[in-house]
């Protein structure tokens, strides 16, 4: 645990599997408590302003009500009847009814043969039947995927919370000018707030795994140079973030059932290890991988823009790709759809973020995918 940080307080209460469709809205599971009572009436948070999904999964994977208040399945186990809460308003201020929700998902390509659900039937204003592609578990967890989120009206967001974005700004500057809550990968920020009694830092769950995709195989495989455990540990040093050697399970180990296009083997494969241009961790890992190749080899790194990277992944034309993948996936086939199917996948490191919270901020909760939520904010002085 880093100096100055406080141990992540994950209270796992009520996380045991519950009978469907019951939920416990009052559960305190996965909540983060700063070591101080809430005293701030308004907070400025530098977090992504996410919408709401029908179902939420907390950090333990337990279902929580989101846009839906209840859900039940038929005898086949594939068709789920979802009941929406009656006070939901869309971003335009109009009631968020079942038909509007279905239309929104359909427009985004979530419904149909290539989507995440096979079909949707709108039963009434508040109920809709969703047929999944395969028999699910005790909850239709796929509906917790961010792809199914919809933005809510401003008045339905937690009162007293102001969202902002730190585009290129040093997080330390943001904290100094009044930001109360932010998420960062930079250990220097944790070091900065360690000496400030107003702030508490948390290590968030491991939410990302960096992988090396290598379409080609042979004696010059980069994976061979990374097989040594000491070398794998050095990857965490190279990344300059809070990292550990990647730990299983890995959701991509079961991609064989996925249908995906098969690109022709490229006539010429470059000697580059490429990474997304805006991902510093991927860049450092790619550099470490190149450093581990013998001197005189032609392997080198290259940053690619998102569109270029997409094309390169489809063609499998680069020697290797360093990418960040989520630690968990509700839709593995979708999340791996852009990867070359013939590539070997070598997990490199797991990474996690730091949460910086000003003391007196309202309690926060951690979602299944690492998202930070502010459920409500109490007026100071009220119990």
């Amino acid at each position, binding site marked *: 645990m880093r100096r100055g940080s406080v141990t992540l307080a994950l209270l796992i209460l009520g996380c045991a599997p519950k009978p469907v469709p019951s939920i416990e809205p009052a559960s305190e599971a996965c909540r983060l408590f700063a070591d101080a009572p809430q005293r701030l009436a308004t907070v400025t948070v530098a977090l992504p302003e996410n919408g709401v999904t029908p179902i939420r999964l907390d950090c333990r994977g337990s279902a929580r009500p989101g846009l839906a208040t209840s859900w039940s399945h038929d005898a086949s186990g594939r068709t789920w009847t979802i009941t929406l809460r009656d006070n939901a308003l869309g971003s335009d201020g109009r009631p968020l009814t079942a038909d509007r929700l279905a239309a929104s998902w359909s427009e985004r390509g979530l419904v149909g043969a290539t989507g995440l659900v096979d079909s949707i039937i709108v039963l009434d204003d508040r109920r809709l039947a969703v047929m999944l592609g395969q028999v699910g578990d005790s909850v239709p967890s796929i509906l917790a995927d961010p792809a199914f989120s919809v933005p809510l009206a401003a008045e339905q967001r937690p009162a007293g919370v102001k969202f902002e974005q730190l585009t290129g700004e040093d997080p330390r500057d943001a904290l100094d000018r009044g930001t109360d809550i932010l998420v960062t990968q930079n250990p220097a920020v944790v070091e900065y707030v360690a000496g400030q009694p107003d702030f508490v830092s948390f290590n968030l769950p491991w939410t990302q795994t960096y992988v090396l995709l290598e379409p080609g195989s042979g004696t010059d495989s980069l994976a061979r140079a990374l097989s040594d455990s000491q070398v794998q540990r*050095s990857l965490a*040093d*190279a990344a300059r973030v809070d990292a550990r050697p990647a730990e299983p399970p890995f959701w991509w180990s079961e991609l064989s059932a996925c249908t995906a296009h098969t690109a022709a083997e490229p006539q010429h494969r470059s000697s580059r290890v490429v990474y997304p241009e805006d991902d510093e961790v991927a860049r450092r890992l790619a*550099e470490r991988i190149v*450093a581990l190749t013998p*001197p*005189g080899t032609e392997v*080198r*790194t290259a940053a690619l823009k998102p569109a270029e990277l997409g094309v390169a992944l489809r063609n499998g034309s680069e020697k290797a790709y360093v990418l960040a993948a989520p630690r968990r996936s509700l839709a593995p086939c979708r999340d791996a759809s852009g990867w070359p199917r013939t590539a070997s996948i070598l997990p490199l490191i797991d990474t996690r973020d730091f949460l910086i919270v000003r003391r007196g901020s309202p309690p926060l909760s951690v979602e299944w995918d690492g998202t930070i939520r502010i459920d409500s904010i109490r007026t100071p002085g009220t119990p």
Partner: protein
Amino acid sequence: MSFRTRLFLGILAAVLLPLGALAYGVRGEMDRRLTAEYEQRVTSIVANIEADLAALNRTVAGRLGALASELSRDTRFRLAALQSDPGSRQYLLDYAGNAMRLSGLTMLQIQDTAGKILSSGHFRNEFDLVQPALPRLISNESRLVLVRTRTAESPILALVRGDSLRVGGRRYTLVGGVGIESERLAGLSQSKDLSVALMLPEAAPVRTTKSRVLREIAVPYLDLLSSSPAIASSRLVISQSSGALEGLRRSVDRWFLTALAITAVVALLLAAWLSARISSPLRALANKTSEIDLDRLDQDFDSERHDEVGALSRVLAAMTDRLRTGSARLREVERRAAVGDLARQVNHDIKNGLAPIRNVLRHLAQVAEQEPDRLAGVYIERKNTLDSSIEYLDTLARNYARLSPALEHVACDVNAVVERVLRNTSVNGTVLQAKLSDASPRVVGDTLMLRRILENLVGNAADSVAGKAGATVTVTTEAVGGDGGAARVRITVADTGPGMTRKELDQAFDDFYTTKPEGTGLGLSIVRRLILDLTGTLRVETSPGAGTRVIVELPAAADGHAA
């Protein structure tokens, strides 16, 4: 080669040869001076480069020394390097990068005695790799060494040197330096037409047609990307781009060629104009002279020029006058000889005509004497013979009457003769015009001859326009010359007829040449002779479709000349 061509070529040569010699000389002098200047600059640049390298060596050594001193006192470095403190691990890995940027270097590497890279500035994640060759080979060099090493993205070249420090009894090596990119090399040359290139040991020698190598400076070289690194020798090659000098030469050549071309064109035009101006009057005189013969002495050599061509024209005019006078005399002699011949011919012809008459008369005398009662009958029988003989003689007489009588030399009123001729000319639909001089010009000659000249010319003109609607024949008189020149009277007979070709004109004055069905072919021939007899000139201006102007000039009568 004609005189005109020789003149033309001479002028061209006189202009172009000096200009070409000037261009050749200037170009050679420019070449010599530029080469000398280049040599001087190259020597200066080589000295500057060597001084720059020495200064760079001192700078890098100073910065590495400062870093080594600072590092030996750095507690976190000591913890990380000696005690492998996890909390100082990232500090150590980032140390070289931060120090490299702060000290203005582009390569910095910290290694332990085994050659393990503890921290790398130019390739941060190269840590823990073992590279013993670099500190071992660099430590013996007091000069900057050119090192080829790598970063994550590409190989780099840097001029580096080494330093060392001791911490906790262990020795650590610092190797640092500055990159040698193309911009730095370009900056060394200090000139656009001189270039400094770095030639690595494996590179081929610089041999291009575009440049020539002036100097080479040896620099130790170490290739860390090779399988067995060792110190070799690279070269900083200073070369002169021939492009700039060649460009200057081409520019000078282009300008000289442009000047030469302009001068050539001007000289060409000038030469053509001058040669034409000088030769064309001579050619005109030659053409006129070639047309002179005894029957055609009416060429006009008058000239207003005061140069040699004018003098030559006047000489030719005087010669033509003398020929004309001689020709007139010769014709007089011929005429007198012809009169003798004619007398003999008349005698012969009359005898021929009188012989039948004599025979008839003898026959009639014989019948009157022997058979008087048959006289009337015989007379009737022989009357036809008499009539034919008489008609023969009559015809003979009329033919001889056409031969010219003796000339009179009196003052003739030209206007009066013209009016009389026009009144007696029979025309059908043709307008006859007289534009007579108010000065009533007079010529020395014979009125009858003048009348015959005009009758022939007007008659011919009237015949040429016969049947043509709106046709005119105009006779003009005017006095010309005088004031230094011989006074003359010009009589012009102009018609609006079909005109003549050059060939027709050449034959028009020949005897028996005619284009008229009933013509004798003697009219213009007689006119020419009559004019020559009067020491006058005859000139014809004609062309097909433009009518004909016959210009006769006769000597004017002096005021005291008897009419």
